[in-house]
């Protein structure tokens, strides 16, 4: 155990010391720490001013928590069916698994490490302290409880995933059983929601709110247990909170027993998952993996004809089209398009006021920022070819950007089509909002180039975020302001659909300027190591 204790302590110590080289992260941690301390002090010393402030129904918090639970249940069940989960890193596999240390001790070490990682993952909850206090009226005990149960949920999900893997590994029938049970679970929830809505004569949201508050819901694995715990804490029913924790604990012990039973060799069970996790992390760091290509098995057909077109710089554009075809049969329409369309449809259906469409457009543009920064141009900049191909740098830059410029245009047709169909927005409004969305995509692409030009090949992530936010505000503010002014003071009611046009024109102008300013970037920049 000495070696394992040494490993845990030394790794923790080195991680803390390494923060000296990552000032951005250190500031973030310090900020969170100050936040927590300030909150505790406030809770202790602040006078209880008023108890009359109205807070949102706490059942919304149960809904959020159950939503996360459902997402994790689904994700970890599927990872259990394919590769399982792991408590270990590749270094553990290479150095610990072959060392003369008891496998149980190593497992204990793995569990401890996983608890630590789960706690770090859950730290974002403290970042939400103002919202939790203001919206739900949470106190210190409630927030700590939320943090604990969220950590427990993430930790348990990893054990659960390994349990599923041990149960279903190399056995298609068992995999099918697991999948069927998962679908039945979801079907039960849908049916229960429907029955409640019929019985209580409430809408979808009301039915879900009643469902998560139901006593029996608390006994459902993961989603129910987390809700039962938090509900127990918030309502002062410690017994319920303890039952929920006990359910997590007993299930964990059962799965770990299965893992360490004589038939199971957990080294083998976690090996593949450790390798897959390592590769995924590596791909993320190198910018290879995007949300649209995760877990997709690609099959190359015998009649696949390759690039077929293009000579010189434009080959990059045709290569991107081929790669996109491999990622999604509909080329530009992928999972991101699908999720965005569904989200827009729901938002359009729910928000039907005068400014609703503009709020949705603003949200979509904000989300687009994160989608565009992992585009194909960025992937191209981490490989040597774009720098080495004997073509003028501007031609290569434009060719490598074509797919990223076209994607928002294609996406916008579906997204704003959904807004018109489901949300009832006018067709003309939707057309001009689609133009605004597409032109924002061009601006974000331009920003990718500016990063490379301003920050070089290995930009600091914190600097990137700050410069990104600064540039985004600087670039979009004039367009938004002009659009609002024209909308209020120039355009008559019948031409209000043109209100986003000034924004679109200014965005396109900004994108053009950025592209032109960065036209020689491929000759002047350095190959990026995962921008």
């Amino acid at each position, binding site marked *: 155990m000495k070696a394992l204790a040494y490993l845990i302590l030394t790794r923790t110590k080195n991680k803390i010391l390494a923060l000296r080289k990552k000032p951005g992260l250190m500031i973030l941690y310090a900020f969170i720490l100050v936040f927590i301390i300030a909150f505790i002090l406030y809770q202790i010393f602040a006078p209880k001013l008023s108890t009359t402030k109205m807070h949102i129904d706490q059942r919304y918090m149960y809904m959020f928590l159950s939503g996360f639970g459902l997402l994790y249940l689904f994700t970890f069940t599927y990872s259990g069916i394919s590769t399982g989960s792991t408590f270990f890193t590749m270094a553990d596999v290479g150095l610990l698994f072959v060392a003369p240390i008891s496998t149980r001790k190593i497992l204990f070490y793995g569990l401890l490490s996983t608890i630590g990682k789960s706690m770090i993952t859950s730290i974002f909850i403290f970042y939400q302290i103002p919202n939790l206090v203001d919206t739900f009226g949470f106190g210190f005990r409630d927030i700590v409880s939320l943090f604990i149960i969220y950590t427990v949920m993430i930790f348990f999900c990893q054990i659960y995933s390994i349990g599923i893997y041990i149960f279903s590994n190399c056995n298609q029938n068992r995999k099918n059983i697991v999948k069927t049970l998962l679908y039945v679970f979801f079907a039960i929830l849908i049916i229960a929601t429907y029955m409640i809505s019929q019985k209580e004569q409430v809408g979808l949201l009301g039915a879900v709110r009643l469902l998560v508050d139901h006593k029996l819901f608390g006994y459902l694995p993961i989603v129910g247990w987390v809700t039962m715990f938090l509900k127990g804490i918030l309502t002062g029913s410690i017994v319920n909170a303890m039952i929920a924790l006990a359910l997590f604990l007993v299930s964990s012990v059962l799965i770990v027993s299965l893992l360490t039973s004589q038939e199971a060799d957990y080294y083998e069970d976690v090996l593949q998952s450790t390798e897959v996790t390592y590769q995924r992390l590596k791909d993320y760091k190198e910018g*290879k993996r995007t949300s649209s*290509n995760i877990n997709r098995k*690609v099959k*190359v057909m*015998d009649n*696949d004809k*390759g*690039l077929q077109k*293009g*000579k*010189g*710089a434009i*080959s*990059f554009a*045709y*290569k991107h089209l*081929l*790669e996109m075809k*491999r*990622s999604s049969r509909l080329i530009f329409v992928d999972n991101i398009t699908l999720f965005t369309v569904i989200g827009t449809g729901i938002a359009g259906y729910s928000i039907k006021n005068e400014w609703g469409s503009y709020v949705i457009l603003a949200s979509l543009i904000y989300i687009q920022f994160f989608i565009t920064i992992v585009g194909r141009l960025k992937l191209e900049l981490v*490989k*040597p*070819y774009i*720098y*080495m*191909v*004997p*073509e*003028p740098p501007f031609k290569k830059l434009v060719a490598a950007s074509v797919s990223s410029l076209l994607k928002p245009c294609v996406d916008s047709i579906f997204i704003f089509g959904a807004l018109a169909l489901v949300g009832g927005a006018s067709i003309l409004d939707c057309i001009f909002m689609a133009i605004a969305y597409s032109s924002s995509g061009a601006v974000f692409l331009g920003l990718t180039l500016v990063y490379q030009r301003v920050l070089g*090949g290995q930009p600091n992530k914190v600097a990137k975020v700050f410069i990104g936010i600064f540039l985004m505000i600087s670039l979009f503010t004039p367009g938004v302001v002009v659009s609002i002014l024209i909308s209020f003071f120039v355009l008559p009611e019948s031409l209000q659909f043109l209100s986003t046009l000034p924004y679109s024109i200014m965005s396109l102008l900004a994108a053009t300027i950025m592209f032109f300013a960065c036209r020689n970037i491929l*000759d*002047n*920049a*350095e*190959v990026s190591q995962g921008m």
Partner: protein
Amino acid sequence: MLAVNNVTKKYGKLIANDNISFGVNAGEVSLLLGPNGAGKSTLIKCISGLLKFTGSIGICGNSNKTLQAKRDLGYIPEVPALYDMLTIWEHMEFIARAYSLENWRDRAEKLIERFELDDKKKKLGSELSKGMQQKLSICCGFLPQPKLILFDEPMVGLDPQAIKELKNMIIEQQQAGNAILISTHMLDSVNGFWNSVNIMMDGKIVTCRKRNEMEEAEEDLETLFFRITKREN
């Protein structure tokens, strides 16, 4: 064919390449040796035009940033840089199209045949083993028929047959009058065909020797390397 003059590359305060000058002539295989962290890969990336530097680098008389220099240059990186979603054959097609090559198909077929990849033409980059990725990376580097080829640890991950084939290809390039610069730690594998050697330490070239000079002095590559890098036991 390759003229490196006063090249300096800094990463912040770290000087990775410190005022380096050397050259490689046509028909010459030049070695770049040195311990880990000596700055070999950085220098090769500077020559390839992938990193910014001060000083000048000429390829066949043109600055390494010019289009003509890019046409004359082939680079096989230490870590193969392939596209996950392209097959082996599509990598060759992409290179041919990007470099605007004519009549490349037979040459591409021969290259992948020499590296025993011909039965895996439909395999995606993401499906290839490390060794196969390295083989494909070499094929991509050779396809445009460059006059100067830079290799950064080319033998790593290759099977004996591929190593033998690569050696033959390097000798063919040498005989065809092309220039080759190889950065490697595997001294035995390059013993048969090198013409000059540059040994790097702490970002500087500390020794440049021609093969005939060393043969006259009855000194072999390994002895020289250990003597220079002070690692001789």
